[in-house]
């Protein structure tokens, strides 16, 4: 599958579709969250309940792209990447502990990218769960509703910062961004940025095989 000139498949079409669907939902959630949260600053342009409905449905749809890309016959690349993001080598742990000031033969994803994926995934689930508690609040004691409100707000702020950083990294690392748009990276890029992955694909040898793709979190190269 590797095209001439030596490029590698980093993200399958399914993964890319899932990523951008997820990004679109996230953007819609942030945009609708602003007037809901800062109502006093922005006044009310649209009917609040319309904004609320959009926010609610986008929130409920949030797990769909990841879920669909993970399950089913097309899900192998995503599942493989998920395993990759979950299990770290000691070297990676040490690298992150020293905030990158240490040599690392990076895997398909570096520890920063892995952490980004995990944090975004966990925060999304937390936001979904607490958001559902706010929408269907009656089974829960009022103290829990208050807690869910605060947790929802706090995680939303935190995740927005993480995603802003993710976008900045993507924009400053065009090759990484291009991999999420077109799916492929050059062999040279892989050797430089993800040597352990390159080696895994037999890049030191002759021609590269194709690797199942994955969701790339932060494009911190």
């Amino acid at each position, binding site marked *: 599958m590797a095209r001439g000139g030596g490029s590698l498949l980093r993200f399958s079409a399914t993964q890319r579709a899932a990523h951008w669907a997820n990004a679109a939902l996230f953007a819609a959630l942030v945009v609708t969250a602003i007037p809901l949260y800062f109502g006093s600053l922005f006044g*009310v342009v649209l*009917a*609040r309940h319309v904004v609320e409905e959009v926010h609610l449905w986008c929130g409920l749809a949030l797990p769909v792209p990841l879920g669909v890309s993970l399950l089913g016959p097309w899900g192998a690349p995503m599942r493989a990447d998920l395993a990759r993001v*979950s*299990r770290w080598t*000691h070297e990676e742990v040490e690298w992150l502990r020293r905030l990158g000031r240490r040599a690392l033969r990076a895997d398909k994803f570096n520890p920063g990218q892995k952490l980004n994926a995990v944090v975004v995934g966990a925060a999304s689930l937390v936001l979904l769960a607490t958001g559902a508690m706010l929408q269907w609040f009656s089974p829960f004691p009022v103290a829990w509703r208050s807690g869910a409100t605060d947790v929802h707000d706090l995680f939303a702020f935190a995740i927005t910062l993480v995603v802003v950083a993710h976008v900045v990294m993507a924009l400053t690392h065009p090759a990484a961004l291009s991999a999420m748009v077109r799916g492929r990276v050059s062999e040279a890029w892989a050797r430089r940025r993800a040597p352990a992955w390159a080696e895994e694909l037999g890049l030191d040898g002759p021609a590269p095989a194709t690797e199942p793709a994955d969701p790339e979190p932060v494009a911190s190269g």
Partner: protein
Amino acid sequence: MAGEGDGGSGRDERVPVGRRVFLSLGALATLGVVLGSRLQSAARGALGTGLGGLLPFGDRFRLYSITGGYPAVAPAAYRLEVSGLVERPVTLTLADLEAMPATRLVRTFQCVTGWSVPEVEWEGVALSAILERVGVRPGAVAVSFDSYDRADTESLTLDQARLPDVIVAYRMLGAPVTREHGGPVRLYVAPMFGYKSLKWLSAIRVVDRVEPGFWERNGYPVNGWLDGSTGPTDPREGLV
């Protein structure tokens, strides 16, 4: 989360860092939900009200409007129509309300969905005083409220309407009730969740049955007591 998929062959032993971070965040969030209001009070106590107000959560009003706007009613043009099963229907101006004996309350404003604002100051006329002024006729059972937004409605039983901490408020947060908070005059039903405190109050109608309001028709309890009970009678009775 951590699948045992092919993370590559021939790897050394690996640490499930991703799974740990994932589960830790989940546990933290769960703890936050369960301890939520207590953590918030603790944070507020530790930081003081000034700094506490800077926290990106808690202690703030979320402004609701079911119509997509805030009705604009000039204080001088404000009229409150009191009608229905009453002896002496009346239309009150803001000055009329201000001339009546004032009730002041300082309470936590609690939304049914969880957010709250502590120690909000309120000032207005006890609804019971207005009902007394117009004279409730026999056969009256409940009170219905209309809003200048022409959409929101609310209701209380006559007994609820006569509670001393149910007021027609013209001051809030130490100032005249602002437009976005439902000014110039709104209802404040202190013993119940915020949705009962109808904004931009335009009319009070004494009626012969409880007419569920806008939020109640959308699934909220007709009787939204702060302790979560939903019966018609004040759960605080007998405790005082």
